[in-house]
């Protein structure tokens, strides 16, 4: 069963960073710090744009190829969101510290866990966006992300939003999609065995989860589940989390 616990976020948690955020949802907890725009190293300097540097640090163990993959996905999508042309030769540095991942009670913990990438991608993505908003880095738009897995259950292919590690392991395919606040598809990564039609359906579900601005009962006639209505309203959550922080900052006005 997917853990439909409500997501939680706190902004400005690190006192010395320009911006920071702590986000937890479905068992994942990530803290992000954003510093920038600051001076870039010579080797990273770009004459017309800011360089976006993403560093992902796992909870246990040293980072490896898995973290580099996550970093490159995040870097390419966040560079589209940030107005990099405003800060040539500068660096926007985003560091993500994974604090908690959901435990698989049915397997012994190993330091190297395969295929955990996709489960944590949405949490990493959301935390980065929240931290960037907290640092007031100029952005083109905000974005929300979600993970969907296609699991074989009772002979039918069931689509699961925010799959648990167990569901990911048993899934036929796992997909991570991110949409901007203008309903544009920003990131689409998939792994496993799936058809084009399945991907289209997954994309529709993800769009409904990420782009829904009010809770309406539109998608009920689909063969899918009430889990769509139960899934977190990510956009609304993002908005209210930031709105609270801004209201606290501007209490004096």
């Amino acid at each position, binding site marked *: 069963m997917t853990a439909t616990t409500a997501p939680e976020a706190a902004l400005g948690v690190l006192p010395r960073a320009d911006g920071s955020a702590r986000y937890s949802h479905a068992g994942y907890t990530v803290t992000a710090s954003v510093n920038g725009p600051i001076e870039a190293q010579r080797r990273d300097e770009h004459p017309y744009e800011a360089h976006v540097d993403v560093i992902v640090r796992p909870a246990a163990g040293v980072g490896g190829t898995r973290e580099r993959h996550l970093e490159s996905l995040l870097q390419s999508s966040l560079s589209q969101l940030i*107005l990099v042309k405003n800060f040539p030769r500068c660096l926007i540095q985003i560091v993500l510290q994974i604090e908690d991942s959901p435990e698989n009670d049915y397997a012994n913990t190993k330091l190297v866990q395969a295929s955990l990438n996709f489960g944590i991608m949405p949490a990493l993505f959301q935390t980065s966006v929240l931290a960037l908003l907290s640092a007031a880095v100029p952005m083109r*738009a*905000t974005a929300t992300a979600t993970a969907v897995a296609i699991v074989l259950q009772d002979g039918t292919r069931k689509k699961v939003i925010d799959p648990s590690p167990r569901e990911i392991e048993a899934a036929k395919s796992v997909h991570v999609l991110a949409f901007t606040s203008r309903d544009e598809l920003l990131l689409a990564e998939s792994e496993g065995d799936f058809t084009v039609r399945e991907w289209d359906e997954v994309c529709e579900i993800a769009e409904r989860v990420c782009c829904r601005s009010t809770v309406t009962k539109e998608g009920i006639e689909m063969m899918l589940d009430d889990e769509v209505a139960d899934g977190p309203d990510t956009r609304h959550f993002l908005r209210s989390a930031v709105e609270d922080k801004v209201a606290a900052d*501007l*209490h004096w006005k």
Partner: protein
Amino acid sequence: MTTTTGRPFVLPGETVDPSLVPTHKKHPLRLGPGLRHIPPSDIIPTVAGQLVTNPVKNSIWVEYNSQRYIPQPGDLVIAQIVRSTQDAYLASLSPYTASATLPQLSFEGATKKTRPMLSPGSLVYARVSLANKHMDPELECVSSATGKSDGLGPLTATAGTGTGTVFDVSLGFARRLLMARSREEGRVAVLEMLGGEEGGGLAFETAVGRNGKVWVGSESVKTVIIVGRALQETDRGGLGIEEQRRLVKRLIREMR
């Protein structure tokens, strides 16, 4: 979605409702920080904050608080000298950013023979004379029009006997302190209270830098610490006027 205060909360990328944008017969619309213009007529916020309009001046901007200073021409800042080259000083406005240039002749009464001697690590109160995204910023310690310093220049302890130091505050708080009517518009009155009856009439001087730095100088170390702590705690705690008064009284009592 408007808040109770009537200032709508905006996120980057949202389109601004055209009815909120002020119009004026004579002045063109002025876009302040946090907004960008996409021709022909889209105004889009780039940061998360509250949308504020000033119908009198026909301006619109996004009000928000942040920690990283981005130089704008005309800002008064407190810069720290990093090193000196042949005819300019390199001064840092914020940590980990490129240094700004401060010409050695840009001080009141400075000529080629009589230059001010500033060692690395010393502080100056300067104005940003040039700032754009392609160049390193430039500072001046003298008004280019009149040639007078108007209070700009090296920040040292009062008259050589006193002491002073600089404290870090958030950019929004620095802006509030620099407002002409900081008590009414910025709702910050700590400095007045400290020098007034609540604080027991402390004697000190301050210089506020738009880059989030406040210099406090006084004869006694204790006074400087009290003022510095009052500023930082007001900033971090988001204190209102009444709470500021209580804070000042508590600090005076504690540091007795």
